[in-house]
């Protein structure tokens, strides 16, 4: 019998008395981080980490809690990114207004997806969600007059944030992005917490565990699935807008491509689906890993241990190929997690550290 305590959303396992203190300490540490570390690369890594957490947390609401595995979340990510970016570049509307428009567009997309796709169950819903994201990507590619097509959009200038004529912050360094990212992480975690501890959370979980039983208890399935999707789309759109403004360049494959959709799902699968900290753990695994693989750090570390000489045949092979192998290693990681840690890394760790919670017969 497998230990199910980790996925038991309403179990009290995750909330012990020390937890608020630990959370506050971590938050304080994160808030002070930019004053202690000034290296732009460290800040960049942290911002990527935040972005990944926001995306994972957003997907988790519809995928983890309500059990509707959307593999088309790039649609909402891209809707946010493109709306904010277009408003800023074409119509000179500052991004902090643009994000609201981005969210509105994402909700419209979510309503279309929901009203069509939630008639389908299981694999059909997954396929339909992919299809919608692909339609958006191809439309963006081809509506050249509006979206600039495959060339993408480059942010030439981000207007500084001013309140009553006073400049609050300009966006010339990474620091403001760091705090915005941190704020969004807190926001998504709070939203997830609220959803989990409300009637909605119970409804979502009931739908995930047994649609027929949920139906028989008078839960309006379509309505509640749509609510889950809309909340999720709103937050994903925020992540998309944040990404667009931070990176300063978007094109259809990077914000609307299938790999974005898959990546969002992976964050949750690897961390632990349907738990508050799952996306955090998943991001902590995936972001450093993909950075390390991309930057040849691993090959250099192997040389540093002296196990392989950089000039030997194996060494040259590693140096040339390891950086390109990140997709392969990513894939292997997913297979390992699915086979050996079906509740994600978080569930696996909990299984090792805590005794079984449920009383058994």
């Amino acid at each position, binding site marked *: *019998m497998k230990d*199910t305590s980790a*996925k*038991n*959303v*309403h*179990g009290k396992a995750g909330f012990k008395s020390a937890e608020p203190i630990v959370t506050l300490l971590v938050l304080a540490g994160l808030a002070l981080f930019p004053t202690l570390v000034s290296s732009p690369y460290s800040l960049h890594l942290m911002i990527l980490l935040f972005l990944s957490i926001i995306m994972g947390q957003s997907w988790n609401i519809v995928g983890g809690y309500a059990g509707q595995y959307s593999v088309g979340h790039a649609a909402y990510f891209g809707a946010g990114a493109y709306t904010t970016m277009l408003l800023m570049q074409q119509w000179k509307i500052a991004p902090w207004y643009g994000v609201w428009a981005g969210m509105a567009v994402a909700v419209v997309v979510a309503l279309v997806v929901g009203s069509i796709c939630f008639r389908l169950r299981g694999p059909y819903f997954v396929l339909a969600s992919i299809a919608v994201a692909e339609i958006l990507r191809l439309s963006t590619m081809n509506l050249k007059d509006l979206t600039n097509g495959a060339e993408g959009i480059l942010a030439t200038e981000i207007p500084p944030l001013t309140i009553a004529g006073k400049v609050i912050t300009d966006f010339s360094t990474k620091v403001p992005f760091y705090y915005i990212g941190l704020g969004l992480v807190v926001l998504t975690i709070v939203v997830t917490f609220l959803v989990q501890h409300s*009637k909605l959370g*119970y*409804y979502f*979980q*009931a739908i995930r*565990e*047994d649609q*027929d*039983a*949920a*139906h*028989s*208890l*008078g*839960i*309006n399935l379509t309505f509640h699935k749509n609510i889950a999707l809309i909340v999720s789309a709103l937050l994903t759109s925020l992540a998309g807008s944040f990404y667009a403004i931070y990176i300063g360049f978007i094109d259809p494959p990077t914000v609307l491509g299938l790999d974005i959709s898959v990546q969002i799902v992976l964050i949750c699968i690897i961390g632990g689906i349907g738990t508050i900290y799952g996306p955090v753990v998943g991001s902590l695994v995936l972001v450093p890993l993909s950075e390390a693989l991309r930057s040849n750090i691993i090959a250099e570390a192997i040389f540093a241990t002296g196990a392989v000489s950089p000039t030997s045949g194996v060494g040259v092979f590693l140096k040339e190929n390891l950086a390109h192998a990140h997709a392969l290693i990513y894939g292997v990681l997913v297979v390992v997690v699915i086979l050996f840690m079906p509740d994600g890394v978080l569930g696996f760790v909990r299984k090792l550290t805590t005794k079984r919670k*449920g*009383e*058994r*017969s």
Partner: protein
Amino acid sequence: MLKIDKLNFSYDDLKVLWDIDLEVHEGEIVSVVGSNGAGKSTTLKNISRLVRPDSGSILFQGEEITKLESHQVVERGIVQVPEGRKIFPEMTVRENLRMGSFIKSAKATRESNMERVFTLFPRLKEREKQLGGTMSGGEQQMLAIGRGLMTNPKLLLLDEPSLGLSPLLVGNIFEIIKEINRQGVTILLVEQNVYQSLRIAHRGYVLETGRVVLSGKGEDLLNDPHVRKAFLGM
């Protein structure tokens, strides 16, 4: 209380219900019996609006319910306990029961209903904090019925509650159904266990290949030569 008139239903091209007439009066236990594929469960699904009938009418307390959505039917007081104990495996017993009490009409009486369920099924009280999926088949069936009761049903639809239970538990479940009925809940019961379900029923209907072939008092049906021959092997 419930009046079904000339109900016809088909799954795509396959017609499964033919002009079903069925009536349940307030306070009754009505059993619908028949062999596999006779259309018993489909009849229940039509009442709880999980499927939409081709034609015919279903009146509940004078209101036509064929046009309602399934969650509206639950709000009117018709609750189905689905076949095969569809409980939420990763929620605790208490959480499973709470799931039944979120609709408006049941919220206020959540605690008293919970007590009532625990009195009917002391076993559930013992297992309050256990995950639903880790319980035995009989306990899960109790949980499914208990969860249905949490919604304050006027009419409880039970779909094969004895399916897959040990003979000892089967008798137990039927006693509990009688007790629930004594507490004022009208019950429409669909069963393959013809003897037990007709024994506790006030009235019964016999379905064969989607048609009502016999109806009458429970004990009369038990003594009916056709029923004895076809279902009881006598």
